[in-house]
């Protein structure tokens, strides 16, 4: 299903072997990313040490910063990142998590503002389910276009991001606009639909959900037949089709749908646990950061728990950097981009080394 599966991170063969190299590559990527950021900020005339100091304090400086900043920020990243693992492992390059996140956020907001008087035990699951379904539906469009017409999912998922953003813009100025019709945002969702938070912090129940999704995602991907088929379809489509009798396009499409569902769930959790209302630019690019999170985790849902927390720290720190050192928070996108590139380069280098070691000859590209 992908336009270029061969260079994707290889499925790790068991934790004991994959972990040390994964850690080494990840640490290298993070160091290079932060180094590039520091050099760039110095070159642009900013005070780089002050910036990195603010970044650190904003991410880990206090229990409140850790719980209410870093961990809260990591929730959507983990949910989206696990979904990206499923899509990419199955060979579907889903670049549309941003749009799927918004689809989930819209559905959750609609349910949330109508949930007044519901018991919390009904409202919260309804919000989550609605968000996940909406996200899956948003991903179903590119999946269908791919299966029926052969449209590259890379392009269709990307285009639908923009459609989703315009849809949010319409919703908050139209059907879902707050009652006074002044501000471009929705009403706050009913109290019953809001997620409970840990005392003294903003760390909400969605964090537990994200941990559970990481664990279940890892189990499904590595310990079930469905997961095996998905990995086989992505790793060697032709071999899976011929020798495994796996319906590769359908399996890959299923990975894409689940990826959309998790991104939609992330949107619902953000509405239910953080913003309580829908507005434009609700996501600071979670859908794209989620790709970096998944790649840094080498497409392993369990490792996404760690990389999601790391990127949560980066983004929470970026907020502090903007407040304390007057450096635009978007600067962390440079770090994220560099991390993706370094991880991919390390993968290619490792593959070359393996090939050289095994003496395999015929290699394309």
């Amino acid at each position, binding site marked *: 299903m*992908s*336009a*270029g599966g*061969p*260079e*994707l991170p290889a499925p790790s063969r068991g934790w004991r072997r994959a972990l040390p190299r994964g850690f080494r590559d990840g640490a290298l990527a993070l160091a290079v990313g932060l180094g590039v950021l520091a050099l*760039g*900020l110095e070159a*642009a*005339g*900013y005070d780089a040490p002050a910036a990195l100091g603010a970044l650190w304090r904003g991410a880990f400086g206090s229990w409140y910063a850790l719980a209410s900043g870093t961990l809260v920020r990591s929730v959507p990243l983990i949910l989206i990142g696990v979904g990206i693992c499923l899509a990419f492992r199955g060979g579907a*390059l889903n*670049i549309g998590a941003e749009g799927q996140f918004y689809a989930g956020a819209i559905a959750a907001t609609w349910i949330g503002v109508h949930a007044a008087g519901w018991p919390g035990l009904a409202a919260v699951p309804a919000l989550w389910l609605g968000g996940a379904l909406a996200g899956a539906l948003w991903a179903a*469009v590119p999946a269908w*276009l791919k299966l*029926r*017409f*052969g*449209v*590259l999912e*890379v*392009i*269709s998922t*990307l*285009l*639908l*991001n*923009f*459609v989703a953003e*315009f*849809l949010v*813009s*319409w919703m908050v*100025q*139209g059907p879902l606009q707050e009652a006074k019709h002044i501000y471009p945002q929705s009403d706050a969702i009913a109290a019953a639909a809001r997620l409970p938070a840990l005392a003294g912090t903003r760390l909400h129940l969605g964090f537990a959900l994200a941990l559970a999704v990481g664990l279940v995602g890892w189990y499904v991907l590595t310990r079930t037949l469905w997961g095996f088929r998905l990995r086989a379809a992505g790793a060697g489509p032709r071999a899976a089709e011929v020798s495994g009798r796996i319906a590769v396009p359908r399996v890959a499409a299923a990975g894409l749908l689940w990826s959309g569902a998790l991104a939609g769930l992330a949107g619902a959790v953000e509405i239910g646990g953080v913003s309580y209302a829908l507005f434009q630019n609700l996501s600071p*690019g979670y859908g*794209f950061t989620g*790709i*970096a999170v998944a*790649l840094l985790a080498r497409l392993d849902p369990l490792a996404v728990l760690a990389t999601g927390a790391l990127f949560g720290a980066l983004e929470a720190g970026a907020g502090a950097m903007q407040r304390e050192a007057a*450096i*635009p928070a*978007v*600067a*962390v*996108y*440079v*770090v*994220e*981009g*560099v991390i*993706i*590139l370094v991880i*991919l*380069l390390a*993968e*290619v280098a490792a593959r070359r080394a393996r090939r050289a070691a095994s003496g395999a000859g015929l290699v*394309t*590209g």
Partner: protein
Amino acid sequence: MSAPDLDALTAFLAAAVRVATPLLLAAIGETVTERGGVINLSLEGAMLAGALAAALGAGAGGPWAGVLTGALAGLAAAALFAAVSVGAGVNQILAGTAVTLMCVGITGTVYRRAYGYGGPGLTIPTLAPLPLPGLSRIPVLGESLFAQPVPTYLGFLAVPAAWWLLYRTRTGLQLRATGEAAELARAAGVQVRLLRFAATLAGGVFGGVAGASLVLAQVGTFAERMTAGRGYVAIAIVVLGRWHPVGVALAALLFGAATALQFLFQALGLAVPYQVFLMLPYLLTLGALAGAVGRVRPPADLGR
């Protein structure tokens, strides 16, 4: 048709061409890149970098300096992408996404550094329309096609130039062979990697100029993330135009027309939310891709 109708049609066509210009420039460059077997998703980043560099360059040395700095910024973004994907062999889709992310971060940071939180406003010198003598006097078509700023004419010229390069030169033949069957081309003595590098860099220059035209000839200012996915749309336009310069030009004009429809409908005062018109070009592109893709074949080695 009465005269007001003709005026409205002329205005609509002129708007369509104006909107299509950055897309046309970016898509023609990407056509050359993709015929060589490289799909460059960092085109979005190249356009964005080109847009900011054009604003800075034009502010310092006039609009033509802006076009030059825009082209250089696009070249720089494409060079990073090419080094990682063509040079080191990293997955093109992911490398392109990463470079675009970096461009969003860099442009956002530099923009704030250069202009503070107020933005450049309308202080950037822009490229005024340059009506071509004679041609621009032709009713409707001439008035809309040939009374445009210079980047539009660059786009018009790029179409036959790309066609000539791809189909009438030895380099073009080798490039297409590289895109269809890299291994065979290499065996036949073609410098596959060199050609792909060159095609990617050329695409980046066009992306940068496209971003410059967005700032200098269409919007008149820079805003964060102002390209709003136009680079990705340009890639969809390449598919829609079946990887052929003429088809790509028509697809870009179609997209421009779909976008310009919103001005027409808004003028009519229809009770439809304006966001629907903003979505329309993206939805039409999806629909057109679904209709077109089944009958066309991308370069066989695209993305590998």
